[in-house]
């Protein structure tokens, strides 16, 4: 209200009365709240203001008190309401209200959030925690195992009220269960073929134990991060793996050798067969050819044996003598010792030169080239010639 307000002067019957101001305020506020505050006590409002103001205060306090019971449950959460410390109900996501303190209280738990736990390592598989990861197996070997598990809450009531440290319990149970399962298995099984089975068994056992403790926790997944022999023996294990590959390699090499040799042998075999078949065909054909030729000549021969024989003989002799070196020695003309330089003759014939003999009187007539008399009938000779060129079996 400004000083130049015309209403100012009208109120100035006396100094401003604090009680009056308070009363007016109270009335207005009471009017706001409907009949209860303002309607019931319009009469006494003109008297002392304080008790009426107290009512207002009480109402306000009550409102604030009641309002303190509001809470919001997120989509992933559940509210657990306790009435006088006793479990009352579990509330769904959305705005919720509970009777205010001290009657009811609420605890909001994150239900569907996936929690992760790492056993044997932290953050990275390389960052090992040996105390957790080294385990004894059934055959008294030691393996180095890292695994992680994820869990969610399945029962907020159990989670809150049954165990003091449910999250810690998960860690203890996980370690204990995994060690129990690994302790029952052989090393090779844990490291190689049985990883999946170990994982599944461990998960089952963990869940059983957690249920026995009523932790309200559900294990959604156990993942084997790594299963390997301890570092101290890693090299030997790697070598064994390499040996497996060496074995494979050697077998493959053997196979390769076999694949090379056997087909080649088959090739050789079929070559032999084909060759023999060829030989057979050839020899038979040759025989038939020669037989046929002989039969024909024989037929002619039987017609004129003497002449044919003489002709064939001379033909042959001519051919033989014309192509060989020869020395004609008349033994009847003298019986003195004849010197025949055979080695020289051989040398000469090899060189293709002709050396005339020094002794003509003794009728040593070296004849390197004889002039063949022209043959009247050239047919048989040609036949013989052509036969020379045929391959002999």
């Amino acid at each position, binding site marked *: 209200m400004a000083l130049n307000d015309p209403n100012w002067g009208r109120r100035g019957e006396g100094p401003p009365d604090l009680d009056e101001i308070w009363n007016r305020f109270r009335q207005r506020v009471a009017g706001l709240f409907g009949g209860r505050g303002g309607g019931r006590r319009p009469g006494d409002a003109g*008297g002392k203001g*304080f*008790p009426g103001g107290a009512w207002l205060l009480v109402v306000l306090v009550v409102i604030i008190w009641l309002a303190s019971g509001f809470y919001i449950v997120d989509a992933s959460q559940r509210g657990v309401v*306790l*009435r*006088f*410390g006793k479990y009352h109900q579990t509330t769904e996501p959305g705005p919720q209200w509970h009777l205010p303190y001290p009657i009811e209280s609420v605890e909001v738990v994150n239900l569907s959030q996936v929690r992760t736990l790492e056993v044997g390592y932290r953050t990275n598989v390389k960052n090992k925690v040996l*105390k957790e990861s080294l385990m*004894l*197996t*059934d055959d*008294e*070997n030691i393996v180095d195992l890292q695994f992680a598990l994820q869990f969610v809450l399945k029962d907020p009531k159990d989670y*809150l009220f049954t*165990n*003091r440290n449910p999250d810690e*319990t998960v860690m*203890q149970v996980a*370690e*204990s269960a995994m*060690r129990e399962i690994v302790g*029952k298995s052989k*090393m090779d099984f844990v490291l190689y073929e049985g990883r999946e089975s170990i994982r599944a068994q461990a998960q089952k056992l963990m869940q059983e*134990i957690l249920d026995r403790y009523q932790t309200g926790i559900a294990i959604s997944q156990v993942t084997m991060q790594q299963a390997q022999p301890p570092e*101290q023996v890693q090299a*030997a294990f790697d070598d064994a793996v390499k*040996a497996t590959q*060496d074995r494979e390699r050697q*077998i493959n090499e*053997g*196979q390769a*050798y076999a694949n090379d*040799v056997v087909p080649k*042998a088959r090739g*050789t075999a*079929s070559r032999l*067969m084909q*060759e*023999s078949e060829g*030989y057979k065909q050839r*020899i*038979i054909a040759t025989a038939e050819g020669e*037989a*046929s030729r002989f039969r024909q000549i*024989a037929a002619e*021969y039987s017609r004129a044996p003497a002449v044919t*024989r003489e002709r*064939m003989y001379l033909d*042959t002799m001519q051919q*033989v003598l014309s*192509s*060989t*070196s*020869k020395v004609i020695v*008349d*033994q009847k003309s003298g019986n003195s010792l004849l010197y025949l330089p*055979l080695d020289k*003759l051989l040398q000469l*014939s*090899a060189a293709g030169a002709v050396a005339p003999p020094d002794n003509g009187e003794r009728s040593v007539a070296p004849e390197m080239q004889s002039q063949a008399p022209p043959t009247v009938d050239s047919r048989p000779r040609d036949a013989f010639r052509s036969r020379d060129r045929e391959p002999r079996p």
Partner: protein
Amino acid sequence: MNRSVSTVLIALVVILVVASLALFTVDQRQNAIVFRLGEPVQVITKPGLFLKVPLLDNVRFFDVRILTMDPDEPERYITSEKKNLLVDSFVKWRIVDVVQYYISVGGDETRARIRLAQTVNDNLRAEFGKRTIHDVVSGERETIMDLMREKVDTDARKIGVQVLDVRLKRVDLPLEVSEAVYRRMEAERKRVANELRSLGFAESEKIRADADRQREVIVAEAYRDAQRIKGQGDARAAATYAQAFQQSPEFYSFYRSLEAYRQSLKTKSDVLVLDPSSDFFKFLKSPTGKR
């Protein structure tokens, strides 16, 4: 009316004060004992709102959730074959009888834990002493845990505690023994590796030898068949020749000899020493062929 309002307000405050003194809540997680001048008069095992006499009564609360006893350091136990084992275990327990618990350990959790730890240790020592490492690690792990639960539970009931579970966590060999195990594992792997390599060599040799054998057999069989076929050819040829030559053996002998001469004497390096008196030269000395 002023007075009545004030009265109501004062009454309300008084009621609240009295209520706060006379009422108490027991949480879902708790049990409580009401003591009147030090004397337990009421045991509350259910959660909810309860009454007490103000000022005279005193309430003590106990956490009845499942608690864990998990020692930080592993204990050393000796097995029946006199070998050391480092064992880590944990115990799940909870208070079931608050009065008994209060009487025996004064409601002090630390004391209860010490008491439990002793029991667990003694029993584990006894059980491990009866068994070998192998039994402890794999064969009878569950048996031990079950036995332990029963024994420790029986004992724990005396202090109002129920033992839900005793579980072995780590059962490890001490460091110096671990080293020996590593050496053994290494030797074992070496053995496996050598065996694998030798096996590989053996199998490879087997395959190679088999291939060689196959090769020999294949070639030999082919040779055999080839010879048979050749023989067939030879036989046919011989038969053909014989059939033809039998017609005039005498002429064949002549004919064949001529051919043989031609074939064997046909180069210059063949030197013939001839007598001019032979039949071939009969015209060389006289045109009539007379000697």
